[in-house]
């Protein structure tokens, strides 16, 4: 979901750790290293990587294209090929009939079935283009805060994995416990009380 969309969803993170100087240069290098790879002409089902906010279909991190004011703005792109089960079934049935006719056998073994399916998946994934999903993010490096513009669980998990791999920094998602621990400025005594809290009811 896009930062400039009329309606947005935001998942908030704390970024822990600092990058070596020069920070911007290191961010650019890391983004380039983990930029999305196009898989339309490859027999690969899924590709995940960074892309630029303004040119999501042609990742470009030159100059300060990822810098907006004091914020770093770029996107996570997840390309996935979805092969409809009916197409898979059709191609499998054709190949199975062909093999049985050619060999004069009544059936094909379980291992051969598996092999045929893998070959068909390989063949189809070369012909079916990947569907791109783009999720923008805003990173305030100085404050150690990051907004990711989707609440989708799978996309957030991919972000956490790729971000850590790319920048070697840990990303902590905000939810009640982490917000209390990291954002509320609790004293040690208050933290002890937090550990012991249990749910309250307002019912009579």
């Amino acid at each position, binding site marked *: 979901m896009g930062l400039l969309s009329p309606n*947005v*969803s*935001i998942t908030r993170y704390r970024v822990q750790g600092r990058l070596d100087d020069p920070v911007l240069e290191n961010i650019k290098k890391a983004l380039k290293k983990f930029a999305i790879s196009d898989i339309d002409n490859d027999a690969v089902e899924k590709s995940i990587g960074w892309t630029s906010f*303004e040119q999501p279909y042609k990742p470009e991190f030159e100059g300060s294209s990822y810098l*907006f004011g004091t914020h770093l703005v770029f996107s996570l792109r997840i390309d996935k090929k979805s092969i409809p089960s009916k197409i898979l079934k059709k191609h499998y049935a054709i190949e199975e009939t062909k093999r049985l006719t050619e060999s004069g056998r009544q059936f094909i073994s379980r291992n051969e079935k598996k092999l045929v399916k893998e070959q068909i998946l390989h063949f189809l994934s070369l012909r079916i283009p990947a569907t791109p999903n783009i999720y923008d993010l805003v990173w305030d490096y100085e404050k150690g805060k990051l*907004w990711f513009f989707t609440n989708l669980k799978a996309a957030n998990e991919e972000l956490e994995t790729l971000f850590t791999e790319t920048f070697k920094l840990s990303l902590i998602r905000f939810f009640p416990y982490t917000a*209390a621990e990291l954002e509320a400025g609790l004293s040690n005594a208050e933290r002890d009380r937090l550990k012991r809290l249990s749910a309250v009811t307002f019912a009579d």
Partner: protein
Amino acid sequence: MLDIAIAYNRYRFLGDEYLTWLWFLVENESAQLNQLDKDLTALEIGNRMVLENRRNEAVETITIKGDEAGLEEGVLALKKGALVNEVNLLYRCGDQIWQFNLKGESLNISSLKTPETGKVETKEDTEGAVLEKIYLYDKVVEFVERSFRLFIKNRVSDKWEKKVVPQIREWLSNSK
């Protein structure tokens, strides 16, 4: 810090208590909200509220939605032991309005609609539009962070049991 996955489930009730407390402030203690955020003109409950009652073995969910929907069912659900699980809020600042959903267990913000911004017609407009949007999103994010901070400070203090819980119970018993 606790393991993240364990902590998420162990403390999910805190998010629901926070939203319930926020509703109480909206109805009864709006001055506290104004102290928290000087730019805030008013905070209102919007067109959707989801409550969950986890007191019994089966989880009971009550959803109230619609622009003209009354919240009496919500009050009744609270009286029976439910807590607010998700709420749509209207944040007013002067004549500008932000509308968004806030979910208790994750503190996730969704369907956030900000006051209208200028159209992006050329490539040169993009940077200004991005910075304007970041500024507008920050108003809501900042409000959520500040109000949660106030809630959690109250929640880990004696004030919670001695003052806040009785006040919320009193509000409920006085509500029809």
